[in-house]
């Protein structure tokens, strides 16, 4: 990429930054007819939500049976109204988008720009550079790739890289290097073509310093991080495929994550993905993301990452296999899970029906500041 902004506070804000820059790009050329952004149906929910926030209409593009974008369907919706396509790569199915070159070429030929949701950069470092492939913008999540832990939901940071066309529109302030080698921030109003600010100050600096330290510590071995993450995901997928208790919808190599399904298991035993996930808790594992992507029935999206040892990977596979056996032999044990957590399954319907979102003093005697 030609330039990067570190300002966005998370991936979703990075997406908004990217799509607003694309909007500014088309407007700067007087091209006001481009009101649509194409989003594959397997995309993360932030992609269509971002599209709306940036004032575009989302046009959903169906996936082909191989998990990639359906090229014919893509061609059918592509046109003079297309501002951009947002492609998650690797996709939320954990697959490298097989027709990525064609997609980028087609959208460019139609006058639109190509945005890559690079939240999952951790799968492809050293193997694929979105800028070289022709993407015009991408965000990446430092909280998925550069070691920032999630504190139960954040903080992270969502830097955005852009190709030459979008550099003039980068958020302000940029950090500029002066001829004498010193650095300064852009002054307010210094670059009128900018889309403006996305937040106060300059970004989630503390998080970015951590990411920088992680990058320095790995150097060119960052490629090894991706290799190990991909190797671990494929190994785990292979173990489950060999066992056969769960459906593995896509046979080809996955990247950092893969989809497994409890589809057959559900049909044969009545045990659903939700039950499997809850039972994993009893085996000492945090369940994977479930029922996502929305396009896959009874989905489990399993991402081992590069940091789990082979012993842990094997233990996780063994647990899933054991749960499938339980589903046939002692289904109530699975249905009632978890049995070892501080609480059992929750009444989520009651929580939504009559929301209790804050503590309320009961008697008035707890009035916080009596004087």
């Amino acid at each position: 990429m030609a330039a990067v902004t570190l300002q966005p506070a998370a991936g979703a804000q990075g997406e908004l930054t990217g799509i607003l820059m694309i909007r500014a790009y088309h407007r700067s050329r007087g091209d006001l007819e481009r009101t649509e952004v194409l989003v594959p149906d397997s995309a993360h929910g932030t992609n269509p939500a971002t599209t709306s926030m940036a004032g575009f209409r989302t046009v959903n593009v169906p996936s082909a049976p191989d998990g990639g974008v359906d090229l014919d369907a893509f061609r059918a919706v592509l046109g003079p109204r297309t501002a951009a396509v947002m492609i998650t790569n690797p996709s939320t199915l954990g697959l490298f988008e097989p027709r990525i070159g064609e997609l980028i070429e087609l959208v460019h030929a139609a006058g639109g720009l190509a945005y890559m949701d690079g939240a999952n950069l951790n799968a492809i470092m050293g193997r694929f550079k979105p800028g070289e492939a022709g993407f015009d913008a991408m965000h990446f999540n430092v909280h998925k790739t550069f070691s920032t832990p999630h504190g139960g939901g954040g903080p992270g940071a969502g830097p955005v890289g852009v190709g030459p066309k979008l550099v003039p529109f980068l958020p302000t302030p940029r950090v500029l290097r002066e001829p004498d080698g010193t650095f300064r921030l852009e002054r307010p109003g210094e670059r009128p073509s900018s889309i403006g600010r996305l937040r106060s100050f300059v970004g989630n600096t503390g998080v970015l310093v951590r990411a920088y330290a992680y990058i320095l510590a790995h150097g060119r071995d960052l490629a090894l991080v991706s290799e190990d993450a991909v190797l671990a995901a494929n190994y785990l997928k292979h173990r489950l495929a060999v066992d056969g208790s769960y459906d593995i919808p896509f046979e080809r190599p996955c990247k950092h994550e893969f989809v497994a399904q409890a589809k057959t298991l559900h049909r044969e035993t009545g045990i659903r993905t939700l039950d499997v996930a809850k039972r994993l808790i009893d085996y000492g594992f945090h369940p994977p993301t479930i029922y996502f992507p929305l396009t896959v029935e009874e989905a489990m999206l399993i991402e081992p990452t590069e940091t789990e040892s082979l012993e842990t990977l094997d233990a996780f596979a063994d647990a899933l296999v054991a749960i499938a056996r339980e589903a046939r032999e002692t289904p109530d044990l699975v249905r009632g899970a978890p049995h070892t957590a501080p609480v059992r399954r929750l009444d989520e319907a009651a929580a939504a029906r009559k929301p209790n979102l804050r503590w309320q003093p009961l008697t008035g005697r707890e009035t916080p500041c009596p004087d």
Partner: protein
Amino acid sequence: MGYAPHTHDDRRRMLEALGIESVDALFADIPPELRSSPLRLSPPLPEQSVAARLERLAARNRTDLASFLGAGAYRHWTPPLVDQILLRGEWYTAYTPYQPEVSQGTLQSIYEFQSLIAELTGLDVVSASHYDGAAATAEAALMACRASGRDRILVSRAVHPQYRETLRTYAAGAGVAVDEVPVVGEGPAAGTTDRTALERALADSARPPAGLIAAQPNFFGLLEPMAELGAAIHAAGGLFVAVVEPVSLAVLAPPGAYGADIAAGEGQPLGIPLSYGGPYLGLLACTNALVRQIPGRLVGQTTDLDGRRAFVMTLRAREQDIRRERAASNICTNQALLALAAAVYLAALGPHGLRDVAAGSAARAAALERALTEVGVERLFPGPYFDEFVVRVPEAPAVHRRLLDHGVLAGLPLALVEPDDPLLADGLLVCATEVTTDEEIELFAWALGEVLGAAAPRRQPTTAGAGGGR
């Protein structure tokens, strides 16, 4: 130094199981013509070299100054227990507490955060964090538009300039018009929102406003007549958005009490260290009537199958992962760990402690004003303020630079952020909080007197206030 745990033997066993020679086979699906050029990065660095390199960079930041800088982020004393609790690994585990059975600690901490901020703001619904005060303010504006079905927002020019810039960015995407309401130029209300101009803006019936955004205290540190501003926008059928500073809420009226429908603000003063702008904490709260419009996570109390009290994310149908293009916002990752810091800070201080911090800050700011008056430097705006105020200093940016040589970070010259506003050309925004020492104030006043060539007070102070704190 890497952090990958696999041994060569582990890798070989995995490759063997997969029946392949090398991991290259797993990347064969990347079209050959699109495969990457090599990473132009240096070899891995040992951890101590990384630390040394970052320490060298850090040393080029001046942290020895007596700081009077506020302008949106504030120095306060943080009890060490806040960081101790934050360091516990249990908080770092899961990405999002989607599995409530194993996330009760995180979920309860979020519920307590919501409760504490609700108590402070007087508003019942609190979202479990946004990116920062500016983004939360922009989200509040979009909320007002959704709730009212209108597409024009009024914002006082006494709202933080970076918040207004952020608002404009978000509004451009959403097709929302942003009209700024000027501030009063002179007289007792100088520096606060101009209510005559507001009435004029409200009278534009062609495009009725979705809401009005005003800040308390405002960017210049001044107190605004929030009840009157709220009444004016309500009369025009719009919502009132209050941008608040949370510590001040221990002594000022809460937004819920003066009729605000939404409160937004920067939560950094609540136990979060200054860190060049982030990670901080976006606060967003609203009345019960707006609960389905608020973006971001909400945690609710419920029971488990055995009737035990338990906590869970709720009203999820507002969120992007379910609603997609019809979601209230695209927010997903938030600032949860910082929300935890705020909750621990508030719980540790309690209502009396927080009031001490607020009153202490106001008292130190008053002491600062007295010291600056002694060297002939007057306030630009006369109205009441909280812990921050503007003084008139001709050529403020140059004076600010020269004060650095005296070891003083003299707040913010307003010309740097509002270059086009003649009213602010000589304005210097300065701040003091409960951690500002007498020595720091003396140094500032003495040095400012020196730089301005005014009659200096008795003697040069002996101690500089290296970074403040205790």
